């Protein structure tokens, strides 16, 4: 926890020195020079517990902690023809400890993978013609950890309606991933040195349409079509068969997913907002899911609001899942990963947002401080807690 706040405050102090050079009337001025528009510092601490680790075949500790820190910098400039150019640079680093990863090598006191870091930078460029209401975007990203490397790319197109109350967006994303084949120690061939590798590719197309319905209500429909191919199992997930033999998880090498969602935001009176979200999901691993989410931000004063939220999730589970000791040699594909089992989950908590007129702690440009806590509980007896903080410079 202490680390989260130290990081946040150190970066806060760093940007404060830059803030003094920004003219106060810069909000309305369309700068031809590259201008710092917004910086977001987000830190989170996540902790989970459970007794159905996939590394040990659906039994064993799922204890995990993760500290995540991200910085997101948005830069803007206007071209000679009035085109708005936005550059969004983001970098994140996670440090996690995982009791289940520590069980990949059952004979070791501590496996190399019991803790790891993940580094994930991304860069997005948007070219917006405000007159025509048209935006083109392109982005690249990567994610690096000891046993996993992912490279991503995306392009997007948005067009606002003539009255600027509707917007259509199309986006295409791809992720080209490579993973090290770290097997459970007892399944490694004798004398094996190093690890093999395998590829996993993801292609995702997204269509969305948002519409302002009236002065208080706006709605968005969004649908994805996602296709994955390659090695979609995880090499260190054990599966224990009914005859007591142990195997590596084995899943099909393709997966096709279709999630469809609807979002709505409604301003009730002068101080209450209702944010709602529903998603239906289906895929060809026979997993179906429903997600319903509601959040109600309440503005208690001009500078302070609270946001209680509740999210309900239910899934049918994939046909390839069976618990510890229930799979047989007749099964073509098999997993004992409870993330793919039938369950319901609830996630609830509260957010708080401070936007003092004179900035946080009197630092004018650091204008927003957000805190959010959530508790997650799953019917497979897994629980988790997360606390996050976001400090915004604008």
């Amino acid at each position: 926890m202490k680390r989260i706040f130290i990081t946040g405050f150190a970066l806060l102090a760093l940007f404060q020195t830059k803030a003094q050079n920004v003219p106060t009337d810069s909000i309305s001025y369309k700068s031809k020079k590259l201008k710092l528009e917004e910086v977001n510092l987000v830190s989170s601490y996540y902790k989970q517990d459970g007794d159905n680790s996939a590394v040990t075949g659906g039994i064993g500790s799922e204890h995990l902690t993760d500290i995540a820190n991200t910085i997101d910098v948005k830069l803007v400039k206007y071209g000679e023809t009035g085109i708005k150019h936005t550059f969004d640079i983001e970098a994140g680093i996670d440090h996690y400890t995982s009791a289940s990863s520590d069980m990949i090598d059952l004979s070791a006191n501590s496996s190399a993978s019991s803790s790891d870091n993940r580094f994930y930078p991304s860069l997005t460029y948007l070219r917006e013609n405000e007159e025509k209401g048209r935006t083109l975007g392109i982005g690249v990203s990567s994610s690096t950890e000891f046993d996993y490397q992912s490279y991503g790319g995306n392009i997007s197109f948005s067009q606002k309606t003539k009255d600027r109350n509707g917007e259509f967006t199309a986006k295409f994303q791809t992720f080209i991933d490579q993973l090290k084949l770290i097997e459970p120690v007892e399944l490694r061939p004798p004398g094996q040195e190093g690890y093999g590798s395998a590829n996993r590719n993801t292609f995702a197309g997204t269509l969305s349409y948002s519409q302002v319905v009236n002065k208080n209500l706006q709605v968005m429909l969004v649908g994805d079509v996602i296709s994955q191919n390659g090695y979609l199992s995880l090499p260190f997930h054990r599966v224990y068969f009914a005859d007591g033999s142990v195997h590596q998880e084995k899943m099909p090498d393709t997966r096709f997913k279709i999630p469809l969602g609807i979002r709505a935001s409604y301003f009730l009176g002068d101080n209450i907002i209702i944010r709602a979200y529903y998603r239906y999901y289906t895929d060809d691993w026979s997993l179906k899911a429903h997600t319903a989410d509601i959040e109600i931000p309440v503005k208690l004063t001009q500078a302070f609001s609270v946001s209680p939220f509740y999210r309900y999730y239910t899934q049918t589970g994939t046909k390839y899942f069976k618990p510890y000791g229930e799979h047989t040699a007749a099964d073509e594909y098999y997993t004992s990963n409870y993330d793919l089992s039938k369950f319901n989950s609830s996630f609830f908590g509260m957010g708080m947002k401070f936007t003092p007129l004179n900035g946080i702690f009197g630092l004018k440009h650091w204008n927003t401080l957000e805190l959010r806590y959530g508790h997650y509980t799953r019917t497979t007896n897994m629980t988790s807690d997360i606390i996050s903080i976001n400090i915004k410079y604008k």
Partner: protein
Amino acid sequence: MKKPKQKKLVLFCSIAFTAILFTSCTSVKGYQKGKINDSEMVLSNRKIEKTELSFQSYREGASGANSGKSGGGCGCN
């Protein structure tokens, strides 16, 4: 398990609800968008939700259709 008739009814009601919603739109001028432009009204995930959304996508079989990423990164722990 829903019967095909019930599924059709749910689908019909969803389409009808969406159609009614979108056809009941009124033209809102820029100066009338004070509430619509409030930062809490945004129709996407906020920065502070990033880590919780990542873990939900790791711990649950479903993902996507939430304006976030749909792949990349391990999610294995």
